C-alpha cells in the first residue's frame, strides 16, 4: 500500500491521457474525496459537475486554453455564490481549492492522472454546463489514465522558517 506521503510526492499534473474510460466507482470516490474537504464555517460552498460524454468534453476543451489533451472525464469544481455570503465570499475560494486538492490526491492514489485547469472561460463553461449565474466554475479537474510521467519540478528552497521569518529554517 502506498503511504499518504508517497501519494503527495507522486502526484503530478498530468496533461496527456490514454484513450481509456475511467471506471464510475473511481470517479465517485474522487468526488467523495472532494466533499470531505475542510470548509470555513462548514459552509461547503462547492458544486461538482462530472462530465463524461466525449462530445461535451470536446466542447469544454475548446473553451479551455489550459487543457491540452482530451481527458476521459472533466470535473467542474464550482462555487455556489448563493452560499458564499459576505464573510464567506473570499474564504470560500479556499474551500473549493481544498476540495479540488483532495480530488487530485485521490485520483493519484487510484492510479489516475489529473490536472487542475484554471485557464478556461468561466462564462463559456457556465453556458455549456447550464450552470445558473450563482454557480461559478472555479477549476476544471481533468481526469484519465496517464500517458506521460513528468519529472517532479524542483521545490523552492528557503520557505520554511522556525519561530520568525528570516531566521533558522528547514528545507
Amino acid at each position: 500500500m502506498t503511504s499518504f506521503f508517497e501519494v503527495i510526492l507522486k502526484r503530478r499534473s498530468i496533461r496527456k491521457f490514454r484513450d481509456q474510460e475511467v471506471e464510475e466507482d473511481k470517479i465517485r470516490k474522487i468526488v467523495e474525496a472532494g466533499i470531505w474537504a475542510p470548509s470555513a464555517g462548514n459552509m461547503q460552498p462547492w458544486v461538482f459537475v462530472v462530465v463524461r460524454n466525449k462530445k461535451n468534453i470536446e466542447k469544454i476543451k475548446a473553451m479551455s486554453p489550459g487543457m491540452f489533451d482530451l481527458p476521459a472525464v472533466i470535473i467542474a469544481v464550482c462555487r455556489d455564490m448563493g452560499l458564499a455570503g459576505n464573510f464567506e465570499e473570499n474564504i470560500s475560494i479556499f474551500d473549493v481549492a481544498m476540495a479540488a486538492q483532495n480530488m487530485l490526491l485521490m485520483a493519484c492514489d487510484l492510479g489516475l492522472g489529473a490536472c487542475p485547469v484554471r485557464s478556461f472561460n468561466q462564462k463559456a463553461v457556465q453556458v455549456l454546463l447550464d450552470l445558473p449565474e450563482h454557480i461559478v466554475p472555479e477549476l476544471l479537474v481533468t481526469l484519465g489514465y496517464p500517458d506521460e510521467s513528468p519529472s517532479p519540478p524542483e521545490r523552492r528552497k528557503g520557505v520554511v522558517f522556525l519561530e520568525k521569518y528570516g531566521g533558522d529554517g528547514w528545507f
Partner: protein
Amino acid sequence: MNDGELNKEFFELLCYVLTSARGLMDEPKMYGPFRLVDTASRIISILEKHGIADDFLAEERKKIDEGKYSVMESEEKFKEFLDRIIQDFAEELKKS
C-alpha cells in the same frame, strides 16, 4: 475531405483563440507567446489530419509539441525554442 469535420475543427480552434484572447487579459505574460505557438501547433494538426500539411510542417509540429512546455521551466529556454522554430521557418521560406 470531410468539410463538416474541417469546419468543426476550425470552429473549435476559433473558440480556443477567442477564449485565449480574453484569458490573456488576466493571465501571466508568458502565456501569450505560449498560446500563439500552441495555436500554430493546432493549425498544423488540423492540416495534418486532412492531409494538407507537408513534411516540413509535420516535423515542425512535432518540434513545437516537444518544446512548447519549456515555458514552464524557464523563459530563456522557451525563447531559445521559439528562436529555433522561427529559424526553421525562415530557412523554409527562403527556399520558396
